[in-house]
């Protein structure tokens, strides 16, 4: 266990050095959520009504959730690149812990997601978003975002070890992540969604993550009605439950995949 932590730390240190060497990657990753901020705050925002509150204030928590969910794909492309470059083979020939490469990767991607959230917070601040709740609540909200993205990184780790090339990652994830982050209360209140989409959005963990964060930041106006669905009423618990479930399921799978991956 100690050697596993030691090795994972070595791998995580390597990945963090890489972030500083290739800052361009950060730019491209935050550009998409920044576009969404501008698009929704200034283009669509005018026609979305948040009773008793401002849409921009409502929007930013959704952007945060979207950022960390998409940010987790960094884990997939990072691992896929390591497979392609032959680094995974190098690691697998070394007498190191079998789970350290993936554990180190998911850990270092928390740093990466923290950086994206800081940038998005500044962008949010610039368009008028504010933290209205207590500092403690805000810290809890940020931690929840990071933990959720950490758990999602394990799912993405499996994908990264399965795809034939790093380029496939973006296309493969987009198909899943786009509906996951849009059929939710990220950009509009879930009550406004029609028919079957409403219950899907209510049970979508991205919605509960967004709702929990929105509440902790104090971004919901006082006259917002209490949510009627169970997941949204227990948004914090439900989101944490999902995160833990994802780790429990996907961490062992990712470790097994790592042991089998490698170029011939």
């Amino acid at each position, binding site marked *: 266990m100690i*050697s596993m932590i*030691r*090795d994972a730390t*070595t*791998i995580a*240190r*390597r990945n963090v*050095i*890489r972030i500083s*060497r*290739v800052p361009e990657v950060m730019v491209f990753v935050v550009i998409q959520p920044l576009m969404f901020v501008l698009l929704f705050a200034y283009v669509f925002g005018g026609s979305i009504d948040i009773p008793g509150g401002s849409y921009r204030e409502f929007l930013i928590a959704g952007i945060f959730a979207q950022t960390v969910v998409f940010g987790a794909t960094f884990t997939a492309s990072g691992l896929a690149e390591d497979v392609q*470059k*032959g*680094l995974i*083979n*190098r*690691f*697998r*020939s*070394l*007498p*190191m812990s079998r789970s350290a490469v993936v554990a180190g990767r998911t850990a270092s991607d928390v740093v990466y997601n923290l950086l994206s959230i800081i940038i998005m917070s500044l962008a949010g601040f610039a368009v008028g978003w504010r933290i209205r709740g207590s500092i403690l609540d805000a810290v809890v909200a940020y931690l929840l975002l990071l933990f959720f993205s950490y758990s999602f990184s394990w799912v993405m780790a499996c994908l990264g070890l399965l795809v034939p090339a790093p380029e496939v990652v973006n296309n493969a994830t987009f198909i899943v992540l786009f509906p996951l982050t849009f059929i939710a209360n990220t950009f509009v209140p879930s009550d406004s969604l029609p028919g079957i989409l409403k219950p899907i959005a209510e049970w979508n963990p991205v919605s509960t993550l967004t709702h929990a964060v929105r509440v902790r930041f104090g971004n919901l106006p006082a006259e917002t009605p209490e949510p009627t669905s169970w997941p949204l009423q227990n948004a914090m618990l439900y989101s944490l439950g999902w995160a833990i479930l994802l780790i429990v399921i996907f961490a062992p799978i990712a470790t097994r995949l790592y042991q089998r991956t*490698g*170029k*011939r």
Partner: protein
Amino acid sequence: MDNSSGNNYVGEFAVEASGLSKHYGDVVALDGLELSVPTGTVLGLLGPNGAGKTTAVSILTTLIAPDGGTARVAGVDVIKEPQRVRSLIGLSGQYAAVDEHLTATENLEMIGCLYGMRRPAARKKASELIERFRLSDSAHRPLKTFSGGMRRRIDLAGALLADPPVLFLDEPTTGLDPRSRGELWDVIRERVEAGTTVVLTTQYLEEADQLAHDIVVIDHGRAIARGTSQELKRRIGGEHLDIHLALLTDISRVEAIVRPFAIGAIRTDDQEVLVSIPVSKGIEALGSVMAELSVQNIEIVDIGLRRPTLDDVFMELTGHKTQEEQT
């Protein structure tokens, strides 16, 4: 580099493999490969692309499990105790497996830590190797600014970092210019002198000739010939005399002229209008053949001596096989 690490294996054979087989779907990558490498020697695995060289190395370095057969590296079973094997080997791959965004020092330090060394020890060892490989000036630059040869040296340095008793080098010089290749060979020789056992795969006969004590030629996942470089050369001829002719119709006459000098199968190529003959005393044969060609008034485009290539080896070895099957 320190030779006093006491890391060397003392058993008779540092690598032993028996009946190794591996297939991917219908494709047979290895078909009952047998290997034994005496401790402290270099084995050259020679073969064309797809012969099974990399598959063999991948099994011996625990990257993939064989479908059948057994293998021991430094006395340890690769299937039963892969993690112990990993601490006894160094692997340098065909594709320089280094992180191009990290510096040379950072790459080697990371590998050292993953071998279980303490960070200061790993850093010290890394800087020793960087100095040995004459890369000190570039030690703190990301590898993406390095040439192919420099990257390959760092990759090799990674394999040497923990002074493992057995080294696996998968096509260590493919794609390198002659100078870089020579430099890498020097480093490998140095390690062998210090007692390290090396398994080397290559597509170049010259490389196996330069480095290997024993050579195993593999094709379609099987060993089709084995022996010292001298023994193999005797089989395939030391040198080749290539005669490019002006007229295709002269080929049979030329064949008759060169037959007395041939020490192996004569190869003719109608497309290139070429006659290629393995000869033992090159210069002598060249003089006599030239004289006879001019006496008989046969026009030639080009004539020259060259060292045998992998093509010649395969021509010779698979040629015999076909004859054996016919009889």
